[in-house]
C-alpha cells in the first residue's frame, strides 16, 4: 500500500515549525525563547505586539490562504480529472480578485467589512460555475483551461481598467495587492472575516470527497457505481468557490500553489483525489508560509508580493507537469 500514515502528522509538525519560524524571522530577529515567552504572555510588551499583532496573523493568513487554495485545487483536479486544474489556472482567483477590487474601487468595501469577502466569493463562485457548466458540455480539459485563460485575461484587463480610473495612488496600491497577492499587514480581524468562508468551503469539499474517488472511472462509470453527478458537481464547485473566494479576500490572487501541493501529495495517497484533500491543504499552507518568510527576509527595497514568489516557484512546476502529462482524457 502506498498510503502512508505518517504523512499528515509530518505535515502537521512541519506546519507548526514553519509558523513558529515565521514568528522568529523578520526585520528584528527574535530568539525562540523570546517568541515563546511572547506566546505565553511574557513581560515584554513590544515582543508580544510583534508576535501577536504582526507576525502570527501574517503567518496564519499565509497558511489559511494556502490551505484554501490547496484543498480547492485538489478537489477541482478530482472533479475535472486533470492535474492542471486549479483556482488560479481556471481563472477563479482572478475573477474573485476582480470582484474584490471592484468593491474597493467603488467604495463598497467601506460599507461593511463583510462586503469585500462577499464580493470575492461572488467572483469566485461565478467563475467556478462557468467552468463547471463548460465542463458538462465539453469533455476536453484543454477547453476548460482555455476558458480559464480567457477569464484570467478578462479579469486582468478589467482590473487594469479600474487602475487607470483609480482616483488616488492609495487605491492603486490596494488593487495591486489584490492582483498580485499578499498577506502583508493582515490582522486577526481580517482573518476572521475570511475564515468562515474558507471553513464552509472546506467542509463542503470534505463532506463530498467520496465522489471524487469515484470520478477516476470517468463520469459514465462513476454514475454507474452510484454517484449522483449533478450533486457532486454542485458541491465541489460551491466548496471550491467558497474556499477560493475566502482565500482571495484574505490574500488576493495567488496562483499555482493549488497545483503544486496536490501534485506532490498524490503519490502518497494512492492517487486518490478524496484522500489528497487534507494533506494537499496542509502542504499548500506550509508552502505559502515558507514563501512568505522568503518574501520578508529577501533584502529588497520594496517588499516582494507573495503571489509573485508563488508564481515564480509554481509556474515552472505547472509547465513541467503539463509537459510530462500523457494524453489520457483529452
Amino acid at each position, binding site marked *: 500500500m502506498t498510503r502512508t500514515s505518517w504523512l499528515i502528522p509530518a505535515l502537521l509538525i512541519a506546519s507548526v515549525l514553519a509558523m513558529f519560524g515565521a514568528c522568529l524571522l523578520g526585520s528584528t530577529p527574535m530568539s525562540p525563547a523570546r517568541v515563546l515567552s511572547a506566546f505565553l504572555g511574557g513581560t515584554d510588551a513590544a515582543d508580544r505586539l510583534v508576535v501577536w499583532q504582526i507576525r502570527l496573523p501574517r503567518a496564519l493568513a499565509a497558511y489559511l490562504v494556502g490551505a484554501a487554495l490547496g484543498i480547492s485545487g485538489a478537489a477541482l483536479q478530482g472533479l475535472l480529472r486533470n492535474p492542471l486544474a486549479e483556482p488560479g489556472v481556471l481563472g477563479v482567483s482572478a475573477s474573485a480578485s476582480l470582484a474584490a477590487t471592484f468593491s474597493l474601487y467603488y467604495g463598497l468595501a467601506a460599507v461593511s467589512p463583510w462586503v469585500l469577502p462577499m464580493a470575492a466569493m461572488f467572483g469566485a463562485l461565478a467563475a467556478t460555475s462557468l467552468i463547471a457548466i463548460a465542463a458538462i458540455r465539453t469533455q476536453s480539459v484543454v477547453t476548460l483551461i482555455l476558458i480559464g485563460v480567457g477569464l484570467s485575461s478578462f479579469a486582468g484587463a478589467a482590473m487594469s481598467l479600474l487602475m487607470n480610473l483609480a482616483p488616488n495612488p492609495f487605491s492603486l496600491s490596494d488593487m495591486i495587492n489584490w492582483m498580485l497577492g499578499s498577506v502583508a499587514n493582515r490582522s486577526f480581524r481580517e482573518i476572521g472575516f475570511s475564515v468562515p468562508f474558507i471553513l464552509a468551503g472546506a467542509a463542503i469539499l470534505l463532506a463530498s470527497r467520496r465522489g471524487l474517488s469515484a470520478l477516476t472511472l470517468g463520469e459514465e462509470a462513476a454514475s454507474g457505481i452510484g454517484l*449522483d453527478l449533478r450533486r457532486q458537481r454542485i458541491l465541489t464547485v460551491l466548496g471550491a468557490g467558497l474556499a477560493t473566494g475566502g482565500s482571495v479576500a484574505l490574500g488576493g490572487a495567488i496562483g499555482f500553489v493549488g497545483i503544486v501541493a496536490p501534485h506532490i501529495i498524490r503519490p502518497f495517497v494512492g492517487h486518490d483525489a478524496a484522500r489528497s484533500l487534507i494533506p494537499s491543504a496542509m502542504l499548500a499552507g506550509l508552502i505559502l508560509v515558507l514563501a512568505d518568510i522568503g518574501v520578508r527576509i529577501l533584502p529588497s527595497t520594496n517588499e516582494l508580493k507573495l503571489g509573485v514568489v508563488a508564481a515564480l516557484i509554481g509556474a515552472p512546476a505547472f509547465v513541467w507537469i503539463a509537459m510530462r502529462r500523457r494524453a489520457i482524457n483529452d
Partner: protein
Amino acid sequence: MTEIIVKNLGLTKDGATLLEGAGFTLRPGQLIALLGPNGAGKTSLIRTTLGMEKRCSGTVNLGGTDSESLSPMERARRVAYLPQQRPLAWPNSVRDVVALGRFAYGAAPGRLNPKDAKAVDTAIELCDLTELTTRHTDTLSGGELARVHCARAFAAEAPLLIADEPVAALDPRQQFRIMNIIQAYVDRGGGALVVLHDIPLAAKYASHLIWMQEGRIAAEGPPEQTLTAQRMADIYGVRARIDGRKVEIEGAI
C-alpha cells in the same frame, strides 16, 4: 428475485429516433448477448434501461421499481454497469479501483468495512488479479485492465450485470477469459446483458441473443433459434455459414 423488464422503450433525440418499441427481460441465470451493427441503438438501449438517459416512452421495471425513480446508489446495488468507455483518470492501485465497486454501500478506497473488504477480495480472486492488487493501473496491459473493470463491477455484488463491449480490443485469449468470468457469474445466479460484436463468441456463451437494428429489436431468443444465415445477412450485411452455434463469416454482401 431482481430482474429487468423493459417494455416498448422509445427514445428520440434532436429529431432522430434512437429507440422504438424496444423491449426485453433480463433474469438471473441468463446471459444475454446484445447484438447489432454500430449505431443500432445498443448503448442507447442500455443507458435508457438504466435511467441514465430519459426515455420518451415505455416502461422499465428494475427489480420492482421504475429505473428513473431509483437513486444512482439504489440502482448500483441492483445492477452493475460496465460502460463502453472505461477511462482511468489517475494511476490508482488495482485494489483501490476494485474497491470503487463498493461505492453504493458507502465505502471508498482506503475506507472499507469488513464486508466491503471481503467483497473486494472475492472479486479480485474471481478475476484472477491476486498478483496485481498493489500494481498501479497505468502499468497494466489491456487484458489486465479489462479484468480490473470486471472485478470492479463484481465487487458491487449486484444481482444483475450490464456490460457494454467488455471484450473490445482484447486478444482472443483475453476475450475468452473475460467471457468465462461473466459465465461463472451467471452460473452463480447472476443475470448478465453483454454487448458483443464477436458473433461466434456470442453464440458460444449466450443463453439468449437480442438482435438490434435501427433502434428496434429485430429478433430475440436462444442462439439455436435466432442465429441464421438470413439474419446475419439482414442485420450485419455479411454472408455467414451457420451450423448450430458455430458461425463462420465469409465476407460482406
